[in-house]
């Protein structure tokens, strides 16, 4: 039994507010009692004397909300255990405040069949920690040709399907995939990119032109988003657009949502807080592999549009897009370096930085990490009656270093950068799986 006293609770249901994208219930000062594996009570004041068995924790100054769910993380197991394992990935997730993490299917072998899902669920279930909710592949081998056995994937525990960083390019196939996935209650998550417009992996701009890097314009994403929205309407199925990176995509999603299209979207912490200038690594001419990521970091006006889209709920969620790599994969000339940023442990700090900068209301930040991804997956929202809870200390100062990061992936441009805001407690099924103070 746990009694969390003095925090600020964010739960739209408690305010009687309607739940849904863009919910902006304010936080309220309340105490929270966790017992029998679930949140039993949330009240303005709960006296310790009335709960003598409860472990008392002072969380004044902290934000409490439904346990954070990461919709998109590359946990690398099976197959690339030198980059990350389910154990190290879950430890990183817990330290990052996540009570559940969705494992992307781009493993070796690909999670395109029940046996692989079974293995992941089995490995993750052996030790306490954040839930691992796998995403299966849309197509066998992520090859974009034949549908995977989605009914079995769902039975085995997959919560959705995606071809990871491979967009499903054939329009007819995507239509059928949307129809088939929705038959079995699976969310379909798509990386939106038109390959014909992507001459290279970097943002097409004056900067990439100057550095001689092959780029892709914003429109490589925009035209794919526009097409996929139409296909979702045709299929009558819901679509989740992963890691939105361009201002144009935000506008398309806003318009589609206003029209009633069943679409949700997420944005990564790096696209919310960085621009292509990170490639310069602080110099005039630079080629910083730690800033190499897909979709590419873009320009200030994209970043501003993404933050605005997150604030108004056009972008439902923040997903880490955690992509751990070894030094060998990243320490190379830029074209040879692997894609991605190790971000499970910094996502919360990056979102908190938007709140402290006045760019994002705290309630929306908590929703974007907690209730919003729960809605995308059809999982329970709110605090009362369920066991996953995240407590954030928005004032905690820390600096990510290779030694302190729990992930095997030390590949983040934030290494050595002082950050503010971190998880204070991560509680899964009523049990503390991460305690920043006890550490």
């Amino acid at each position: 039994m746990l009694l969390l006293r003095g925090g600020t609770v964010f739960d739209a249901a408690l305010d009687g507010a309607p739940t849904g994208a863009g919910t902006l219930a304010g936080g309220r000062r309340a105490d929270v009692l966790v017992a029998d594996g679930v949140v039993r009570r949330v009240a303005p004041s709960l006296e310790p004397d009335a709960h003598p068995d409860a472990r008392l924790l002072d969380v004044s100054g902290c934000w409490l909300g439904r346990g954070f769910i990461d919709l998109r993380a590359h946990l690398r197991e099976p197959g690339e255990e030198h980059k990350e394992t389910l154990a190290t990935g879950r430890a990183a997730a817990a330290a990052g405040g996540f009570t559940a993490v969705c494992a992307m299917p781009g493993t070796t072998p690909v999670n395109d069949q029940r046996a692989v899902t079974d293995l992941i669920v089995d490995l993750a279930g052996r030790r306490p920690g954040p839930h691992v909710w796998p995403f299966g592949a849309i197509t066998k081998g992520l090859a974009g040709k034949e549908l995977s056995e989605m009914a079995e994937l769902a039975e085995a525990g997959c919560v959705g399907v995606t071809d990871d960083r491979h967009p499903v390019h054939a329009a007819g196939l995507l239509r059928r995939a949307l129809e088939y996935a929705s038959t079995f209650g699976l969310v379909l998550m798509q990386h939106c990119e038109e390959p014909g417009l992507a001459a290279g992996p970097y943002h097409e701009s004056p900067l990439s032109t100057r550095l001689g890097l092959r780029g892709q314009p914003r429109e490589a994403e925009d035209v794919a988003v526009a097409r996929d929205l139409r296909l979702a309407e045709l299929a009558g199925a819901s679509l989740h657009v992963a890691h939105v990176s361009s201002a144009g995509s935000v506008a398309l999603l806003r318009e589609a949502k206003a029209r009633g299209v069943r679409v949700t979207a997420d944005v990564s912490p790096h696209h919310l807080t960085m621009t292509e200038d990170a490639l310069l690594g602080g110099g005039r001419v630079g080629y910083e592999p730690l800033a190499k990521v897909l979709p590419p970091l873009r320009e200030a006006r994209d970043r501003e549009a993404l933050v605005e889209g997150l604030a108004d709920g056009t972008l439902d969620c923040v997903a880490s897009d955690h992509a751990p790599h070894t030094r060998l994969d990243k320490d190379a000339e830029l074209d040879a370096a692997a894609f991605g940023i190790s971000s499970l442990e910094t996502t919360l700090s990056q979102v908190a930085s938007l709140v402290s900068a006045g760019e994002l209301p705290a309630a929306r930040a908590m929703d974007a990490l907690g209730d919003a991804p729960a809605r995308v997956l059809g999982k329970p929202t709110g605090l009362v009656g369920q066991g996953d809870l995240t407590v954030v200390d928005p004032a905690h100062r820390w600096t990510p270093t290779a030694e302190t990061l729990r992930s095997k992936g030390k590949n983040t441009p934030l290494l050595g950068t002082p950050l503010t805001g971190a998880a204070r407690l991560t509680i899964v099924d009523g049990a503390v799986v991460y305690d920043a103070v006890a550490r």
Partner: protein
Amino acid sequence: MTRPFRHPHLLDITSLTTEDVVQILDTAEALFEVSRRPVRKVPTLRGKTVINLFYEASTRTRTSFELAGKRLSADTVNMSTASSSVKKGESLYDTCKTLEAMHPDIVVIRHGASGAPHYVAKNMRCSVVNAGDGMHAHPTQALLDAFTIRRSKGTLAGLKVAICGDVAHSRVARSNARLLRLFGCDVRIAGPRTLVPKHFAEAFDVSVYERLEPALDDADVVMALRIQQERLSQALLPSLREYARTFGLSEDRLAGAKDDAIVMHPGPMNRGVEIDPELADGPRSVVLDQVEAGVAVRMAVLYLLAGDAGAAPTGPRGA
């Protein structure tokens, strides 16, 4: 030649000031005569080692660097991909470390990835010279072009220079644009829109023309860039024939340029495509002067980096 060179490496033009460029060109002037002597060798870099590390096929640039080193009495070694451990999958990091253990003074690198020389400079204790990286930079080409222009025109300042052709894929165009803008040149880019990046004018502060004639109007210098066959399969050009008709340089098309306008080409030329054969061999052409200047400019760069004038390289990260 008394002022020390302020840079440990030559990685791009962007890092240089006009004074740096003038210093390199003046040094090249002083060394130019060496290649015309009966005994084409000076002892300046005796005991120094230069490794030419070429990840892309190159005949003229590699030969030019090799001769430059040899004429300064440096020991020059060529390492190219076809005959090296690179074919066995060695990373650039491991190649850097392996070569470093052999104590070179300068590594000259050509690589298909933009920024690769910057990576090498971070990981080795010696000086690094960029001999062409991806689509990014080819600083010694821009310097030898500047040397050739200055010899012909007496100055670089304020000249009207047209650069014609496949600017999108050209590190030569990028380095030349950067260098010429340092000296206030009116740089005009001409080519079909498929071969000129959308953001090029903004990125390099130059003018872009969709026709050859206005770009060549009153020009002092006209540079042609090589058109590669693969641009056809990338749907950037319909045919070499149509390119030659619309953007190929010829004596007729140069009618609007200054009477004494010079014609340049970084080579190797596709005669009949980007440049008319008669123009290439005619009195306006300085193509072979460029080649001769190349050796002198590369001698200057090696001398400034490895000779007594050189600044010490900063060394690898964490060293």
